[in-house]
């Protein structure tokens, strides 16, 4: 059986709250564990946080989110109309550096790559689409 959920959030801090509410509802419906809910929320929030950062404040738009579960695998798709941004091409931070040599940034997408089993990016018709596959564990 395949289960699909689709919803939209605004690419703003309020939108991330809508994301949380939707995911908590989906987690109840799909009987997800706390850890699964955390990882799904983390993956989507970090991709959206990038979209929020890369969008001008006067250009609040909607981010489309689709989440499906089939054959013990999650498929997440996130689409936004912001500037072109490929999260698979970002440089990884050096996680072995001591605190004082650490610079802000990069850690979110580094963790996204850790939690995702597969991540891909496409740019079509001025739209960014990030697709993530994650095994249900």
């Amino acid at each position, binding site marked *: 059986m395949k289960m699909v959920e689709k919803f939209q959030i605004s690419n703003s*801090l309020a939108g991330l709250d809508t994301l949380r509410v939707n995911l908590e509802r989906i987690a109840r419906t799909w009987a997800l564990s706390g850890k699964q809910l955390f990882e799904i929320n983390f993956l989507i929030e970090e991709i959206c946080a990038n979209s929020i950062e890369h969008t001008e404040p006067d250009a609040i738009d909607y981010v489309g989110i689709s989440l499906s579960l089939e054959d013990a695998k999650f498929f997440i798709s996130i689409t936004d109309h912001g500037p072109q941004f490929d999260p698979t091409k970002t440089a990884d931070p050096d996680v072995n*550096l001591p605190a004082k040599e650490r610079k802000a940034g990069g850690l979110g997408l580094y963790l996204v790559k850790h939690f995702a089993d597969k991540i891909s990016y496409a740019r079509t018709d001025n739209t960014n689409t990030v697709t993530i596959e994650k095994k249900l564990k």
Partner: protein
Amino acid sequence: MIITVSQNNDLMVVAVEGRLDTAGAVELEDWADQAFDPPTYNVTMDFSRLDYISSAGLRTMLNMSKLLKKESFDFSICSAQDHILEVLEISGFDSFIPLHNSVSDCLS
């Protein structure tokens, strides 16, 4: 997010309840800017009731750790749930922020 501060001799225990997400990180960072201007005690974060951390929350932990250490105070994290511990460890934060099982472990 609820921030509860309790004092234990020279240790300030900062319990954060709820979500240290993109919005929560801003709240905690604002609080820390006031509370640690300048820092006067060693600090441990009690994460026993923290459900979520984002990269923004991690950045706040990095900033708080730097701020305290610069003034020669200790900064540590106690009682984090497994999924939050995992994020702290993958990020390599355990190399510069001691992670304790409980507040009492931190006191001893």
